[in-house]
């Protein structure tokens, strides 16, 4: 992998050496986190020991032994301004959850059409939830991680095109994103390693979505809708959904944030309609005291209608301390209640995580 990286950098240098005044910017982010489960039930019926699943898609799971690996990560962004409104950006992320194997998670071309519109194409993070596309950048939000019960979807990248909008309507700042793409994840980590325990290929085709974000003073609202076609292969065998090779998922999201100078309230309400409704929601409250920000959060996931569906919630309490101009220390306690049996995820758990998030 390192070889690949060197090759990539070399290729970039060769490519850009010939271009006059191509400006290359490096920036990055890193999180060093550690945590452990203090007590937990696990899922006896599936032989799962006490576990805290802090991040579903990456399978960042803490156990009763202290571990630094599940959520620690290092990201490097390289952005080259090719002049005439064109730029190319790549983001390489090495995660402890993947044994720090570095992979290119973002790679896209960006073309600025005018002050309002930017067209991008390539591989990007799927902007499903409010925090999805900057999930890896712990420094950018208050908690250790966006609430795990909400961020449960197995696909988090896509390949495609999108159009970003930034503008103003009266006193309101408006931003938006329209995207189209697909992702064919040959060995999906969450499904393969955690849920089905067999190699699972997860395909989301014809993803089509829109995001609209409005902001005025202390108020911000984000609305989103996305549809996709899901296909799946378990151990090479195509999964049939009610006899059909694919099924359609429809995602709806509403996030509202109130941000006063010290007090802030963050909320998210999401629904995925995929053979029934999967509802997620969260509310967090924090209070900035100079460099220290204590916060409380509650999040939940539940399937609607089924007698024994998937149902879990997390209550979190923590502190973010901006002890340095580019780094924040965080400590968080999470109390997870898993109320499902057949679809139990990791059982109840009480865990503690601490860490440092930086950007550079």
């Amino acid at each position, binding site marked *: 992998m390192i070889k690949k990286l060197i090759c990539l950098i070399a290729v970039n240098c060769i490519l850009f050496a010939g271009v006059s005044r191509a400006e290359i910017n490096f*920036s990055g*982010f890193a999180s060093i986190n550690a945590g452990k489960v203090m007590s937990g039930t696990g899922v006896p019926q599936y032989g799962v020991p006490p576990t805290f699943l802090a991040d579903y898609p990456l399978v960042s799971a803490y156990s009763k032994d202290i571990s630094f690996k599940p959520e620690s990560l290092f*990201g490097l*962004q390289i952005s080259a301004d090719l002049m005439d409104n064109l730029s190319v*950006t790549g*983001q390489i992320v090495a995660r402890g959850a993947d044994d720090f194997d570095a992979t290119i998670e*973002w790679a*896209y071309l*960006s073309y600025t059409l005018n*002050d309002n519109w930017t067209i*991008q194409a390539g591989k*990007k*993070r799927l*902007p499903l939830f409010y925090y999805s*596309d*900057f999930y*890896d*950048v712990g*420094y*950018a*939000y208050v908690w250790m991680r966006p609430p795990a019960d909400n961020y449960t979807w197995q696909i988090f990248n896509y390949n495609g095109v999108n159009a*970003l909008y*930034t503008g*103003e309507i009266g*006193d309101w*700042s408006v*931003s938006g994103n329209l995207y189209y793409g697909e992702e064919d994840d040959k060995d999906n980590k969450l499904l393969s390693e955690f849920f089905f325990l067999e190699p699972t290929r997860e395909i989301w085709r014809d993803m089509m979505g829109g995001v609209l974000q409005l*902001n005025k*003073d202390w108020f911000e609202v984000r609305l989103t809708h996305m549809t996709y076609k899901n296909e799946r292969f378990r151990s090479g065998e195509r999964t049939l959904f009610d006899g059909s090779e694919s099924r359609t998922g429809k995602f709806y999201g509403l996030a509202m944030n109130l941000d006063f*100078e010290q007090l802030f309230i963050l909320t998210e309400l999401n629904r995925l309609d995929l053979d029934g409704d999967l509802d997620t929601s969260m509310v967090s409250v924090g209070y*900035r005291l*100079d*460099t220290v920000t204590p916060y409380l959060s509650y999040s939940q996931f539940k399937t609607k209608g089924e007698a024994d569906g998937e149902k879990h919630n997390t209550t979190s309490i923590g502190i973010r301390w*901006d002890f340095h*101009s*580019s780094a*924040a220390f965080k400590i968080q306690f999470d109390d997870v209640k898993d109320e499902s049996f057949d679809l139990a995820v990791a059982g109840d758990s009480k865990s503690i995580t601490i860490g440092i998030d930086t*950007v550079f």
Partner: protein
Amino acid sequence: MNIIKNTVISLLLLISYAAKADVVVIVHPSNSVDFDQSSISKLFLGKAKKFNDGNQAVPINQEESSAARVSFNSAVLSKSGSQLKAYWSKLIFTGKGSPPQEVSNDAEVIDLISKNPSMIGYVDSASLTDAVKSVGKF
């Protein structure tokens, strides 16, 4: 107990007054746009890219450690340095924007703005010269 509390509060107030220099927001002398705190904020947060008259706006920031930047952040943007860094991190790493260009001192800001009608910046009020136009003191 109350005396101690009051003393601590007065001390804190003193310290914060001492550390806070007034900043003036400046533009090119030919710029005749009216500004308020909100329109300046939008330009420095990347939420607006044009002046109210429709002309292109280029905000110029000062280095993170400068006293003028610290005052500007709290008085005009109403945010701490860490909050602003978190805000820009979110935009930088999602390909949605990049922070204003930074220069290292008041003289450099004045020099740049005196030569470029699309720029807007801020300096310590003591550094203000006739080469630029002040559009607000904070």
